[in-house]
């Protein structure tokens, strides 16, 4: 599935990113991504996350190959959820650099919104980073309001 321009523009904003996975027994798991970037492949995204902080997320992707990612603008609450097959890759130096840049940008954005740095410190961690490449097959609007839950994005 290709991402339309609206979604691509949305992804350029400073976003909070959460990752949902489940193990083979159906027990869900939660993680935070430290940046999500355009993959080299069309219709794919590369969220970066810390295996040190979120080992279950890594284990579940390895076991099931499934991932859900919700991206939310902390200022406007505009949100999308993307789902699809996923696989893990080691983070390359450029991935780490982009993730470091993301942490700097989202930290500044949260501070601008009145969230003190002492609160964000435990969340903004990319220690032992991995890339979970997501082949996006479903996109849903999650912005609170009448369009919540509706499918978004379409083939171009």
């Amino acid at each position, binding site marked *: 599935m290709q991402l339309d321009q609206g979604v691509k523009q949305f992804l350029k904003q400073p976003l909070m990113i959460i990752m949902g996975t489940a193990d083979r027994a159906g027990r869900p798991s*939660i993680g935070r991504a430290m940046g999500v970037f355009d993959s080299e492949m069309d219709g794919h995204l590369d969220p970066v996350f810390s295996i040190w902080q979120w080992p279950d997320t890594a284990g579940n992707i390895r076991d099931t190959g499934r991932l859900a990612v919700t991206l939310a603008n902390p200022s406007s609450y505009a949100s999308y959820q993307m789902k699809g097959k996923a696989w893990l890759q080691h983070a390359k130096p450029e991935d780490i650099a982009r993730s470091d840049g993301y942490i700097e940008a989202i930290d500044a954005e949260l501070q601008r919104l009145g969230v003190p740095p002492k609160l964000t410190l435990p969340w903004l961690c990319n220690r032992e980073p991995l890339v979970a490449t997501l082949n996006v097959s479903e996109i849903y609007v999650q912005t609170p309001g009448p369009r919540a839950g509706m499918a978004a994005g379409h083939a171009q």
Partner: protein
Amino acid sequence: MTIRLADLQGCFEGVIPSIISTAAADGTPNISYLSHVAMVDDSHIALSNQFFAKTAANIRANPLVTLMLVDGNDGTQYVLDIRFERSIDDGPLFERIALQLRATSAQIGMAGIMRLKSADIFEVLFARRVPSNAELESEASGRRPANLAAVGRVSESISNETEASGIIDTLLDGLHRELGCESAVVLLHDADCGVLTTVGSIGHEAAGLGSEVQNKDNLIASAAAHGRSIKISDLSRARRFGEAILNESRPDENAGRSIAFPHLSDAMSQLAVPMIAQGRVRGVIFVESRERMAFRDDDVAAVELLARHAASAIALSERDADEASTVSASVPLQLAQSVTIQIIHHAFDDSIFIGNDYVIKGVAGRLLAFLIDRYLKEGRRDFTNREIRLSESLRLPDLKDNLETRLLLLRRRLDSKPFPIRLIHTGRGKITLDMDGMPAIRTVE
């Protein structure tokens, strides 16, 4: 280390959004933010059921759910393995969650949009702390609990007061000095018209005496309507929505016939506690702080203790004030005959203007018009609560329980500006009208 839900108090304040992850029957994961999580007991939590349809469907298909809570004090993240048990749509727990959600929604400008239809109860199977680079000591754990000795001192001071004015002032002073509340407001409830009126405040630039709260969706009115304490622990979201919190702007008193409510424009935490005596809500204590999460559960309990004590003391003082039946004639007033005090009484809302200055409206306005009228017709300046209450011409609602506080409000409002008319408290249940000229009152429809 085993983590108990009771240790996670800072996660249940609704400051940082929680996260819920579910899985469909085929194993497809789903993840979203969640507005409200409440602790039920040591092993259960309740989630406001405002899920997206997919989350709700997944929970019914697969009761295994994972939740992430964030401590609003220090950002520490906790992951909870939970299992769906049941839904509730009434009862005390449901009401508690619905009330808090309503208040929170109103603060972010979404009153009426986020109505709670049901809450889901989950058993907590396991809770663990997410590792973090920031191994900081929690500020919450370092904070001292509310000082019971200080509560005792304030309570003792209230016990020594016999009249509403002294009780309210002592309460406000105690909240400010002993309990460290940056600002506090006492509002009394008028059951007839559903309005809460400010009768005392501390810690503000303008006292706001006589200002009214009516909007049923705000924190203060909700606390009164439901007889429960409500707090907001982080108002920064409300600021982001750009919503006015109470009366953000100072209205023109004379044009709008309304007085600005006293509040901190940069408050981060707010708490409204009902003042209940004999099972009835008599008023509300409203306290604010510039700190996030300033009011923990033990702070709320401390204010609640004082609120109940003060409400009972005020109710008792009303009864005592009503017993005074005779007046001693005051010294004849040497009015400056050459000075006329022009007073306009607007009958439709009982608002009173002295010259061009708005004074007050409602029952308090009617009381002032009555006292001036008696003076003009009978030359009397001294009155008792008892005779005022029994006067048929006043068309008063049942003032048996709050006449004293109405008169207190009127007296304080007249003292708050250099008005040429004042009410002097001359003894329990007794007042005297004091004027700097000859009143001329005109009633307009």
